[in-house]
């Protein structure tokens, strides 16, 4: 399916190489990184305080949470032009697009709601009351369950996408930041920044299956603050960004044991895999750069300077 998408993008797009798009929270811009040269090729202005970022499935639209503009912006990635805003509710921080490529689930951090927006009609379909400061947004691969985590309520809220009602609330450790379904949909992983843990739930029962803690010699436990998470291309590992510990943890997806720690930049937030799945890119908020890691060897290969406080990352395959 990916190949088919690549082909259609090839016809439509004038761009030349695969790209990683990074939002710069304190610069109100997105940086475009060329995956071949590992250099920033474009920097486009966005609304205020851009954080969450994702592409439509055909990669013709870039959605950006412009938190302080209270908007989700839609950008044409070929030109960097903002096409229009979507109604997003107040202070959108993070979002997830449904597998149908149509509905966007948006966490409204200041309003304690999850807003569901139809990207085609540009209308709000539903608003769901969740806990205080929703942020982590995950959706099951079949699109049936959306999970919103709330940072101050310390819960994962399980939302039935057919009814847009909460079906379960599960407690996690303090300040959950990110929710990620396993590629087969069987598990939900939730990172707790202040709790210092990752909790794994069985999706069918919402029961806790396991909990991961971290430890790096020479780094205080209170600095090990898991935030962004990403499954490896073969689904056997999960990369966990550890925030101010400046490391990524590499976790075995089956045993939940930590295999390795990779040194990256300061205050690492989120990640994106290159479209050919050979490189992993991390946003390092405090150092204002992006680390590129070779997925095969788990070695960092480059540090790329972007704007101030890079936060979100998304990959776009283009012609090759």
């Amino acid at each position, binding site marked *: 399916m990916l190949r088919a998408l690549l082909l259609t993008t090839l016809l439509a797009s004038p761009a030349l190489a695969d790209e990683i798009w990074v939002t710069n929270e304190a610069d109100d811009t997105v940086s475009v990184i060329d995956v071949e040269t590992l250099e920033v090729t474009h920097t486009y202005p966005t609304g205020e305080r851009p954080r969450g970022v994702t592409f439509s499935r055909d990669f013709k639209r870039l959605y950006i949470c412009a938190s302080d503009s209270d908007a989700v912006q839609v950008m044409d990635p070929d030109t960097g032009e903002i096409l229009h805003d979507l109604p997003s509710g107040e*202070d959108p921080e993070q979002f997830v697009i449904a597998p149908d490529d149509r509905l966007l689930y948006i966490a409204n*951090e*200041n309003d*304690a709601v999850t807003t569901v927006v139809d990207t085609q009609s540009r209308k709000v379909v539903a608003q769901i009351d969740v*806990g*205080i*400061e929703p942020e982590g947004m995950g959706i099951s691969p079949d699109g049936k369950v959306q999970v919103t985590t709330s*940072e*101050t*309520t*310390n*819960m994962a*809220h399980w939302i039935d996408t057919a009814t847009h009602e909460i079906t379960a*609330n599960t*407690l996690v*450790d*303090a*300040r959950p930041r990110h929710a990620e379904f396993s590629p087969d949909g069987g598990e939900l992983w939730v990172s707790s*920044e*202040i*709790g*210092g843990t990752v909790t794994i739930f069985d999706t069918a029962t919402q029961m806790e299956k396991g909990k991961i803690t971290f430890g790096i010699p020479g780094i*205080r436990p*209170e*600095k090990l603050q898991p935030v962004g998470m990403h499954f490896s291309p073969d689904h056997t590992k999960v990369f966990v960004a550890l925030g*101010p510990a400046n490391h990524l943890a590499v976790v075995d997806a089956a045993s939940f044991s930590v295999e390795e720690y990779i040194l990256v930049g300061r205050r690492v937030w989120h990640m994106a895999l290159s479209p050919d799945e050979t490189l992993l890119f991390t946003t390092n908020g405090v150092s204002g750069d992006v680390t590129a890691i070779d997925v095969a060897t788990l070695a960092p290969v480059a540090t790329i300077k972007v704007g101030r406080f890079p936060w979100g990352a998304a990959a776009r395959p283009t012609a090759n």
Partner: protein
Amino acid sequence: MKLLATAAALGLACASAQAEALRLDWIERQVVPPPVLSNLQGDPDDLGLAGARLSLKDIAKTGKFLGIDWALQETVVPPEADFLEVAKAALADGAQILITRAPAKDLLALADLPQAQGALILNTGADETRLRGADCRANVLHTLPSVAMRTDALAQLLVAKRWTDLALISGPQPEDAAYAEALKASLTKFGLALSGEKDWPLTADMRRSGAAEVPLFTQDLPKHDILLVADERGDFARYLPYNTWLPRPIAGSEGLVPRGWSGVVEQNGAAQLQDRFRAAIGREMRAEDYAAWVAVAAISDARTRAGSATPEALRAYLTSEKARIAGFLGRPLSFRPWDGQMRQPIPLVTERAVIALAPLEGFLHAHNELDTLGPDRPETLCTAFGG
């Protein structure tokens, strides 16, 4: 003797039949604000209480999902009323978890009541280090940082900046003397010393005469990198900057100030809490508001994690290794098991920015870097915690 305000702010209008109803009590002793030179910037009437109210809204939301119905009973005692009688009445009425904003004398009198021995008191208003030392009480935890924690934070910054030539001006009030004493102890702790020191003697109206008097008064201070000042009421020190004989930055009670919280704290998600506070209360969140906010948040977290809301279960959880409370300061918060003080980073702030967040990089500790701020376990004077 009547209550100025008694209101029950219920978390949720309609609670389901099975909801567990839990009560928190806000107990405040109002004091007549001391006179200061400037007439413009007094303390808001709801200082502290506003933080507790906002936090109750936050935890009510969590409680809704968990079937817990939190309520905040507010008792505010006017300066002329008998604090202890009102506090006794609240205890008799069933208060068990008390969030207090009261001077040290009233706090201790409350904590020593026989009826309060099974209660849990969270002090959000008294910063005296002795309340965490020789005058500590087993039933009192503290979310407001002690004076020693704040002056330790400032001393760490002085060390990090290598500002080693230091002069101090102390005001005439008892709290100024206490602050100056704490500051000197912090300097000694981190290997620094004062090279000069003067007491503020002037009673003239500095609003008119600061430019004339301050250069003269500061002219004979020895060479210094930064001028420290103890003026905890915020009386005269505001007239020192730009008026001193030598052009030097000012820190302590004025200028660069170590505070438990301030309206300029924005990292680590703090902007969200600040936005919520401003939207709900219509002013900046101060250290006392934060102390009350975090006290309520800590109780809710402890209830969730410990699975019980008895004072002893909450206290045991909060002072245990398990506690990791989220408080928008970038590190998990917990309570010291030897004196009941909440471990917390201390922002060093100017009016417009956070300059540093203590503990600063490089100040290491065998167990928790937050314990580089304030009296550590080996030096504690507190015995009530069985340490």
